[in-house]
């Protein structure tokens, strides 16, 4: 069975450390690397009529921006290092979405940073790691 490392990135330094850690393991073991970025989103968020009307357009823009600014450059540089890398961007609850992705792609290990971003987001990301540890059914590596 082939090894698949799923790494969560958010453009922060801590996310980069998690990425570097995952990249090293991946190249050592000749595994596949999935670079995932989750855009925090809830189906229960309140919005205005106008926001709803433009939501589909915004979603496309968000996906595109996440690919262009975060995921694609990483995948590019990983491939240059000879790593079999693939990028994914999804909307959703960060921890639960990473969990779903791990199941979907048969990941054998999930790697993510302990904190990411700043302020409230940092607080949220702190709980991303702990939530994921609770719900994951594969080993989770939390990089400080």
């Amino acid at each position, binding site marked *: 069975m082939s090894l698949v490392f799923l790494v969560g990135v958010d453009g922060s330094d801590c996310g980069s450390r998690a990425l570097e850690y995952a990249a090293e393991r991946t190249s050592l073991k000749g595994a596949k690397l999935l670079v995932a970025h989750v855009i925090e989103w809830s189906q229960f*968020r*309140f*919005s205005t009529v106008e*926001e709803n009307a433009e*939501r*589909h357009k915004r979603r496309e823009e968000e996906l595109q921006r996440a690919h262009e600014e975060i995921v694609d450059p990483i995948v590019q540089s990983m491939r240059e290092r000879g790593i079999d890398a693939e990028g994914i961007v999804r909307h*959703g609850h960060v921890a639960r979405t990473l969990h779903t992705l791990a199941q979907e792609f048969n990941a054998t290990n999930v790697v993510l940073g302990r904190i990411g971003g700043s302020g409230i987001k940092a607080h949220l990301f702190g709980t991303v790691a702990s939530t994921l540890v609770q719900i994951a059914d594969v080993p989770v590596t939390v990089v400080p």
Partner: protein
Amino acid sequence: MKNIMRGAFALSWLATVNPAWAQNGIDEQINSAIKPAADAVAGFIFSSFPVGGVDIPFVLVWLIVAASIFTFYFKFINFRAFKHGFHLVRGDYNDPNAAGEVTHFQALATALSGTVGLGNIAGVAVAVSLGGPGATFWMILAGLLGMSSKFTECTLGVKYRNEYPDGTVSGGPMYYLAKGLAERGPGFAKLGKVLAVLFAIFCIGGSFGGGNMFQANQSFSQLVNVTGGEASWMADKGWLFGLVVAACVGLVIIGGIKGIARVTSRIVPFMAVVYVTAGMVIILANITAVPAAFGAIISGAFSPEGVAGGVIGVLFQGFKRAAFSNEAGIGSAAIAHSAVQTNRPVTEGIVALYEPFVDTVVVCTITALVIIITGTWDPGVDPAAGVQLTSDAFESAIGWFPWVLTIAVVLFAFSTMISWSYYGLKCWTFLFGESRAADFTYKILFLFFVIVGSSMQLGSVIDFSDAMIFAMAFPNVLGLYFLLPVVKRELNEYWADYKAGRLQRTR
């Protein structure tokens, strides 16, 4: 009719030139200039015929008959799809690949924040003071029937929405009337176009009336009320309040400051919860009075005392306020619901059942119970008091609540205005095409009516607002009758899939 209009114009002209008026405040001037025209419009829309000694406006019969027909035609969809609607709202059937799109919950919450508002607070107070406790019964009944109207219009709103190349979506009666009827043949296409244009015109009127002037007027009246009533320094400064509100609305709709609208859209649901909780607390604290209150509601519904027009009069008040509050059959909700992500339009119709339910059956009933239980209702009270009556009812139980209510009222009014400015704008661009000039003209007019609304007296504002909003029901409901088979087909296919377990449950 021509004579009435001519008279109205003559009156309004007289009102503006007569020097006697000039000595009064700015409010008085605005009021006297607009009132005759407003009254004339209201008089026409509410053309009525006498039933049992009461003049019943045709438009109300129109709405209630439609709601009843829809309820029977779809075999009590309002009850049989109720549970499934809850599962849809909870996201049990959401497509995981569509995460990030507008969910059923969001579409419903957005539509609700446009409807839950002053109709639930001020409107109910007016119904109970004019129709007695019994009006509540008819209001609830109208709410339950109205669910079927919402189901029909929201299904169509999604089915015939426009999806533009840039990724934005826009739907509503103007599109389903035009596109839906066109599918039925060339003759219908012409009718559809006429109905769509009529709807758009009335909707623009509604966005200036009930979606704007009424909101501004009632939030100002509550503000005056808590700051000392007649003696308040604000009492004659409606135009000033109007200016401030118009500035805030302007920042959002012209200035593009989305942050304000976004913050409001988050706070409004919270305020609604606070309002409902406070109502429940008062009801629970007086739990012993509840059976008597329900007794008064039931007996008042069928054998009212001291209400003009007896049973018909009570029924009229209840139906009228329910229709004004939940807007079922009016068509506005179809605009709000149409952005949802789904490939089965009927799902949004089922979700929309919850709108009149929450709005009328739950929130309006709570307001009515609080008014009845606290005894702040009495037949002699001034019906124009509107929101003040509800405020007094809450105050008698929770002394500081009027302040909270004031914040709630202002926020509800603000979010309703933002929603309606969008509905109106969509209709405006439907008529005049998309252009920056058209866009700007509408928005300036909208702001102007905010100021007018806060300067006028409730009586004429309420009549004009009602008139404009109810006028939308004529083209909308007429079109709905022709489109019923389309909805039926969608519903039957969907319901068969649902019953056979062919729908993918993702939770």
